[in-house]
């Protein structure tokens, strides 16, 4: 049983990490707790769904559609709302509330457009393969999610570390003002970040929608809560942290369900979050800044 549970934890953790990636990227660069990330995630799933069911596109095109549609949504949110709030240096709380308003709007619009019932991808599109090692079962789709999560993480990490844009982004994360003085196009990179983070969220939406084959207007809410926990655990704005935090939460949740009680799954997740914050106020992998008074 343990082997299977470890596999379960790995897949669940990858799902969390995948979602948390874009979320943490936005926090790291824009310093915004973007509560619309769950809605963006849902929009991605619907974009792919519409592409494959209405326009009979292949799944690959569906994922591309998700990437573009969510990315553009992220860009729009940034251009219409977040940029203005940045311009007037609104405190953290304000963009958080604004993105909450966006979530309500987008979710409600999705309910109006697509209805409230669960929608499914056509059966024929789903990869059905499965690996069986003794008692341990692993579906191709799950393997895909794990692979994609790690791949994207590696890609993002590489971009941040080895490209000019990545270095600029890290500079911005340190200090937007200093970055602007260094001649970095801060606004342009903010837009790039908003687009990429939302696109990542959209892709996560499709993959998770495919894995559990259920797409609903409300699908963003529960994962958003977990996403928040992951990002805090991993340290806000830290890309490796998203992976560690996601896996950590996945393992904590699965193992507590397996060896304690399934009633306690979420209680363990949030209880852990609470305790970790008390011990390490910036999350497990967050940078500790000793501020002088």
């Amino acid at each position, binding site marked *: *049983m343990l082997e*299977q*549970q470890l596999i*379960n*934890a790995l*897949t*669940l953790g990858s*799902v969390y990490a995948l979602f948390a990636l874009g979320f943490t990227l936005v926090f790291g660069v824009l310093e915004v707790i973007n509560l619309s990330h769950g809605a963006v995630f849902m929009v991605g799933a619907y974009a792919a769904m519409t592409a494959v069911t209405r326009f009979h596109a292949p799944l690959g095109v569906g994922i591309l559609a998700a990437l573009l549609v969510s990315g553009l949504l992220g860009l729009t949110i940034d251009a219409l709302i977040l940029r203005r709030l940045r311009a007037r240096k609104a405190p953290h709380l304000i963009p958080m509330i604004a993105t909450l308003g966006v979530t309500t709007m987008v979710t*409600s619009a999705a*309910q109006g457009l697509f*209805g*409230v*019932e*669960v929608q*499914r991808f056509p*059966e024929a599109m789903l990869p059905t393969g*499965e690996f*069986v090692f003794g*008692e341990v*079962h692993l*579906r191709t789709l799950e393997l895909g999610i794990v692979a994609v999560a790690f791949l994207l993480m590696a890609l993002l990490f590489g971009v941040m570390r080895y490209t000019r844009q990545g270095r600029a982004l890290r500079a911005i994360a340190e200090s937007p003002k200093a970055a602007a003085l260094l001649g970095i196009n801060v606004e342009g990179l903010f837009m790039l970040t908003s687009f990429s983070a939302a696109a990542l969220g959209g892709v996560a939406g499709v993959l*998770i929608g495919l*894995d*559990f*084959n*259920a797409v*609903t207007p*409300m*699908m963003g*809410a*529960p994962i958003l809560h977990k996403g928040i926990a992951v990002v805090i655990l991993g340290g806000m704005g830290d890309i490796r942290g998203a992976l560690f935090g996601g896996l950590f939460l996945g393992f904590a*949740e*699965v193992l507590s*369900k*397996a060896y304690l*009680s*399934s*009633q306690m*799954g*979420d209680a363990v997740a949030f209880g852990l979050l609470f305790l970790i914050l008390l011990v390490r106020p910036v999350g497990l992998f967050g940078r500790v800044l000793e501020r002088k008074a």
Partner: protein
Amino acid sequence: MNRVSKHFSLALAGLLAVTAVAGDLKIGVAEALTGGAAQYGVPIRNGFQLAADEINAKGGVNGNKLVLVIEDEQGKKEEAINVFKKLIFQDKVLMIFGPTLSNSMFAAGPVANAAKVVAFGTSNTANGITEVGPYVFRNSVMESDVLPVTVSTAVKHYKIKKVAVIYGNDDAFTKSGYDVFKKVLEDQKIPVTTTETYVKGDVDFKAQLTKIKATNPDAIICSGLAEEAANIIVQARGLGLKVPFIGGNGFNSPKMFEVSKTAGEGTFVGSPWANTNPNAANQHFVAAYKAKYGSDPNQFAAQAYDAMTIAAAALKTVKITGNLPADRQALQEALPKVSITGATGPFKFRQAAPKDGKPSGYDADQKPFIYVIRDGKFVLFTGK
């Protein structure tokens, strides 16, 4: 009065005449049409609408048309109370259908009961709903009527020695289903290997199922809604867990097959309704619903459809006087006498046992059937 305002009032009178002819029977419908519970509320509303349209097309009730006043209660208790009050005091309806969730009925039911207006739930299965008072009715079948026979039938058929249980523990509907299962298993002395839970919005059940698999049960009892149940079954099969499922009321939706396809083969479900139930009223309902809304109905829609038929049957025996309190009272007295055969088969009411000496409302008194899933369909179980 000058001419303009005279014209205006004439026009207003004309408008009123169109919307509310004397003799119209105003029925309130309070269901969750937005928010998370809308996935149940919308099919329910459709069921009411379909039945009312059919009844009106045939000339209404004693020549009076049914007029539905439909309000969204968002699946929130305060909203349910607000909507109930609006329907009772402002729209002056004869009776109210809804609300969608048991929780909301616990909040809004007392309002209707105090105002002496019938609150007729079609999807509230929680224990104690009808203890609110004599004006609270429901035609949703109580799990306690269905599950004992479902479990004993499945146990006999599969020669089950021990079972594992999984249920949604943050939802009144699935939790009360679980409570009944638990009692039935105790009564029938069937050992439980492990009891697992999940919460609304969960999509990954593998941790629980892996644990269940390790305890090696002969069957899995699941109290969940079709959306989650289907994924639970698929994921169980994905983990190589091949034992049959026994489901509660929530399984009873064609949605089961959209995801689970053939994975749910052999699942036992006890219910008064299935889309494949061959009785004429049901086949008509299933076809008409599909024609009107373009999707298959579920049990929620079927019960709403029947509820409207029940109300119409009661109204047929009531002489509408135009005195609202008297008419509402008459309707309350007429409802318990109704006996019809609808999409869910033969139906009549049964008064719930009184609580603390106070009179209770009315539960459904229906004979459940046992269905088994075969070839991706609900098939009436006949012992083979």
